[in-house]
C-alpha cells in the first residue's frame, strides 16, 4: 500500500540521521521535531479525522508523563513497563472524558472547552496532591542505560520517539483505509447521516478519543524520560495543548502527513526565530505569531492542502473542517 511504503521510507530516512551526524544540535532538533510531530498526530486522530477539536490535549500528555514518573519513582517499575502503563492510563482518561462528553452530546466548541476545563482540573489537582509532588513536581533520578530508557546520546531518544511516531503514522494510515476510519470520518462529516446508515457515533468518537489519548500519553512519557522533570504546569498547561493542535491544523487536518509537515514547519520556524535579533527579546515571537497568521491566510487548508492543489490530484483529502453553509 502506498501509505505504508511512504511510512517505511520516512522511517528509514529519519532513522538513519544519527548515523550521519553526531551533532548535538541536529540530533536534538530532530528529536524535538519528531516529538512535535507525535503530539500533532495524536491530536489529528481526534481532531482531524474525528472532527472533535480538543483544546485540552495536555490532559493526556500530563497523565502519561506523571504515570511514567510515578511508576518508576513510587513503584520502582522498569521504564519500558511504565511506558505501557502511561499509555494505558492516558487511554483510560480518554475513555472517561470521552464517555462523559459524548454521552451528553457535546460537540464543536463545547467539546473543545470541556477538554480545556478537564486539563485545568487535572493541573490544579496535581498541584495540590502529595503523590504527584504537588507544586514541587517529580524528578526522575539520572541513570543512563538502555534498560532504564535513558540514553547518553540524543540518538537513542531520536529512535525512541521515531518508534512512537511510526506507531502514530501506522495508526493514522490504518484510519485512512479501515472501516473504523471510514465510520469516524463519516461521523465527522455528518453525524446524523452516519447514524442513519447504522454507525454508532458515540462508540466511534469514544474509540477515537481513546486512541488519540493513548498516543498523546506516550508523548508525555517520552518527554519525562528526556527532561527527567515534570510539574503540573509543564504537564497540563495550555502550551502543550496548543502545540498539538497548531501543528495539525497548519499542516492539514485529516491527512496522513499533514501533522508531520505542520509540526516540522512550526518547529523550524520557532527555532529559526528564537535567536533572530537576539538583542531585542520578543521580536522572535512576534515574527512567529505573524508567520502563523500568514500561513493560515494563504494556506487555509493547511500546508498539505497546498500540495494537493498544486498537483491537482483527484481530491483524496476528505473535506476538512466544517464550512459554514
Amino acid at each position, binding site marked *: 500500500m502506498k501509505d505504508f511504503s511512504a511510512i517505511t521510507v520516512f522511517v528509514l530516512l529519519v532513522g538513519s540521521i544519527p548515523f550521519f551526524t553526531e551533532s548535538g544540535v541536529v540530533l536534538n532538533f530532530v528529536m524535538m521535531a519528531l516529538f512535535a510531530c507525535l503530539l500533532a498526530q495524536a491530536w489529528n486522530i481526534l481532531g482531524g479525522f474525528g472532527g472533535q*477539536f480538543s*483544546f485540552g490535549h495536555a490532559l493526556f500528555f500530563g497523565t502519561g508523563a506523571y504515570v511514567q514518573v510515578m511508576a518508576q519513582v513510587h513503584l520502582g517499575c522498569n521504564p519500558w513497563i511504565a511506558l505501557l502503563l502511561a499509555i494505558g492510563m492516558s487511554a483510560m482518561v480518554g475513555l472517561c472524558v470521552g464517555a*462523559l*462528553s459524548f454521552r*451528553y452530546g*457535546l460537540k*464543536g*466548541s*463545547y467539546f*473543545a*472547552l*470541556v477538554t*480545556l*476545563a*478537564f486539563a*485545568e*482540573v487535572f493541573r*490544579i*489537582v496535581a*498541584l*495540590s496532591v502529595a503523590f504527584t509532588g504537588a507544586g514541587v513536581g517529580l524528578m526522575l533520578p539520572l541513570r543512563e542505560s538502555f534498560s532504564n530508557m535513558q540514553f547518553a546520546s540524543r540518538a537513542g531518544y531520536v529512535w525512541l520517539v521515531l518508534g512512537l511516531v511510526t506507531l502514530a503514522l501506522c495508526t493514522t494510515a490504518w484510519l485512512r483505509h479501515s472501516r473504523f476510519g471510514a465510520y469516524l470520518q463519516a461521523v465527522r462529516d455528518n453525524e446524523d447521516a452516519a447514524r442513519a446508515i447504522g454507525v454508532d457515533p458515540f462508540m466511534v468518537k469514544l474509540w477515537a478519543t481513546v486512541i488519540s489519548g493513548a498516543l498523546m500519553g506516550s508523548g508525555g512519557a517520552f518527554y519525562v524520560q528526556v527532561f527527567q522533570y515534570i510539574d503540573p504546569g509543564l504537564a497540563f498547561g495550555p502550551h502543550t495543548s*496548543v502545540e498539538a*493542535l*497548531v501543528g495539525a*491544523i*497548519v499542516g492539514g*487536518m485529516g491527512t496522513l502527513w499533514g501533522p508531520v509537515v505542520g509540526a516540522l514547519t512550526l518547529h523550524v520556524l520557532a527555532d529559526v526565530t528564537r535567536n533572530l535579533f537576539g538583542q*531585542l*527579546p*520578543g*521580536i*522572535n*515571537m*512576534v515574527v*512567529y*505569531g*505573524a*508567520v*502563523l*497568521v*500568514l500561513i*493560515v*491566510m494563504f494556506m*487555509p487548508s493547511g500546508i498539505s492542502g497546498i500540495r494537493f492543489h498544486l498537483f491537482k490530484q483527484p481530491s483524496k483529502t476528505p473535506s476538512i*473542517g*466544517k*464550512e*459554514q453553509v
Partner: protein
Amino acid sequence: MFDLSILFASVLNGITTGAVYALIALGLTLIYGVLHIINFAHGASLMVALYGVYFLREKIGIDPYLALTIVVPAMFAFGYVLQRGIINRASHGKDENILLVTLGISIVLENLALLFFKSDTRNIETAYTLTTVNIGTAMIALPKLVAFIGALVVSAILLVVMRFTFLGRAIRAVAKEKHGARLMGIDVDHVYAMCFGIGSACLGAAACFLLPAYYVNPMVGSGFVLVAFTIVVLGGMGSFVGAFLGGLLIGVVESIGGLYLGESLGQVGIFIIFIAVLLFRPQGLFGGRT
C-alpha cells in the same frame, strides 16, 4: 468553620471581583455568541487596553475613570480593524483557522508589548487605590465597588443597544441566520466587525476599572481568559444578563472556594462548574438556543 462576618466579606469580595470578570466576559459573550469565534486574543486585547489606561495616567495624568472616554472608543476601533482587517481576511470563514489566527494575534500582541514596554509589572497609584468602604462588617476596596457599578452600567447599555437599536437588531439577525440576514441587505462583514469592536470596547471599560486594583505587564491577559470563557458558557453564549450574573456567581464561587479549599485548590471550583454546565446545561443559565 468561618465567622459569619468573614463569609459575608468573602461573598461581597466575590461579587466585586466577579463584576470585573463580568466586564471581560461581556465582550467575549458578544463575540462568541454572534461570531461563534473562540477568541484566543481576548486576553491580549485586555492587556493592550490596560497599557492604554496605564500610559494615559502616567504620561498625561488622566485618571482611569476619566480615561473611559478615550479608551473605550479606541478599543472599539482596535477591535473593528482587527476583525475586519485581519481575522476575517485570514480565516476564510473556517472555525479552526479563526482559532489559529486569534492565537497568532495574541502571540504578536504579547510580544510587541514585551518589546516596547519591557517585562516590568507596572502599577498606578491613585488617591483612592487604598480607600475602602464599609459595608456592614466588611471593608470593600473602593475601586472594586466602582467596578461593580461600572459592570452594571455597561451590561445595561449593551442590553439597550441590542434590543432597541437597528444595529442590535441586525446583530441578532446575523447571529440567528447569517445568510438570511445577508439576503435582507444586512452587511454581514460590517456587523461582525461591529460586534468585535463592541466586544473590545467592553474590554476597554474593563481595563479602566481593573487597573486601579491590579497591575499590568505583557502577560497579564492570560490570567483572565479561562475565567472569562467559563462565565460565557455559564451565563449562556450571547446573553449579557447571563454574562453579568455568571460573572458574579463565578466570583463568589472562587471566593468561597478559596476560603474553604485554599486559593490554589479553590480554583477547581470554577472548572467543576464549567464542566457541569457544559455537560448538563450547555445553553447556560440564560442562553436560549443550543
